[in-house]
């Protein structure tokens, strides 16, 4: 009995450790309630480790090519920082007969909701800190280390939810 408990304790402790450090969960449901369901849990620490070592493995691939957009990175950074410091509010609302788009600043995140003509609903929560971390510098280098660090700050957050009739995709950090 003690032996069994000891054997079970190791994976359980490992599981508890991984869970306590956070998990990114990708949940895909196809074909309605009776369709396939795929759930992919990725330990946050694994994602962070992968991001941390990414530059050593693929430095060039992580560099954003300079197509002229890089000179505006400063503007994007300034805007994101100003939005982060601004009070909550509705930034954009587009209402058309077959499509609605809403962008709201809510706390430390931007919430984008789209309701499309086919009845699909897309909901994306962009944590502002993560968005700032994902911005490349003026040389086009993305700091994956900063991105990895920002992942830890978005725990217990729904990042993406897409609903298009019978299919449902949800990505959240637990």
């Amino acid at each position, binding site marked *: 009995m003690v032996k069994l408990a000891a054997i079970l304790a190791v994976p359980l402790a490992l599981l508890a450790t991984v869970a306590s450090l956070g998990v990114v969960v990708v949940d895909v449901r196809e074909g309605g309630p009776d369709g396939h369901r795929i759930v992919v849990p990725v330990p946050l620490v694994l994602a962070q480790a992968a991001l941390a070592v990414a530059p050593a493995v693929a430095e060039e691939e992580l560099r954003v090519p300079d197509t002229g957009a890089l000179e505006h990175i400063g503007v994007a950074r300034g805007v994101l920082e100003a939005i982060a410091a601004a009070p909550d509010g*509705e930034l954009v609302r587009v209402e058309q007969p077959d499509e609605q788009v809403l962008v709201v600043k809510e706390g430390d995140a931007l919430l984008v909701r789209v*309701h499309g003509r086919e009845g699909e609903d897309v909901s994306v929560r962009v944590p502002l800190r993560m968005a700032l971390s994902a911005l490349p510098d003026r040389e086009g280098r993305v700091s994956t280390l900063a991105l990895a660090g920002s992942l830890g700050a978005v725990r217990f957050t729904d990042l993406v939810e897409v609903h298009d*009739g019978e299919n449902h995709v949800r990505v959240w950090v637990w």
Partner: protein
Amino acid sequence: MRKSVLAAVGLAALVALPAVATPAETATPWIHVRVEEADKESRVHVNLPLSVVEAVLEATPEIIESHGKVNLGKHHGIKLEDVRRIWKELAAVGDAELVTVEEKDETVKVWRKGDRIHVRVEKAGKEEVRVEVPVSLVSAALAGSEEAINVKAALAELRTARGDIVQVNDGDSAVRIWIDEQNSQAR
């Protein structure tokens, strides 16, 4: 049937979105832009805290020089110093009709009333452009002595300005730009 139910649910979700969708007073001035096209049943609302607009302007060195001024140069036909001189005269006049152009199908009027400069364009009753600019905003934009518009001073003035700035109605579409302290637009 199912799609219409989904559409209804989606619309309801949008309408029922967070509490922030309800206009709420903030301590920050917000610039609101509303574009409505009746024939397309389209409405676009943009609301930006003034601090975000300032961030855009401050981070755009190609447009704004390091001292926060837009350089007009001399190739626009009129020197800024001449504009300043004319404005100085106009600002001292007080309430008055400044410009009236009446053509067959278009009327343009510019006048000052109180602390605002009004511009109105009417085209055979079809199109109407109405611009209301606070006198203090123009004065701030023209502050200084260089051949450049003082954007920083204008933005500082906008922080205290409230109310409509631009309204355009051409029958099919309507554009309105205004400043208040609400974090969204009443629908």
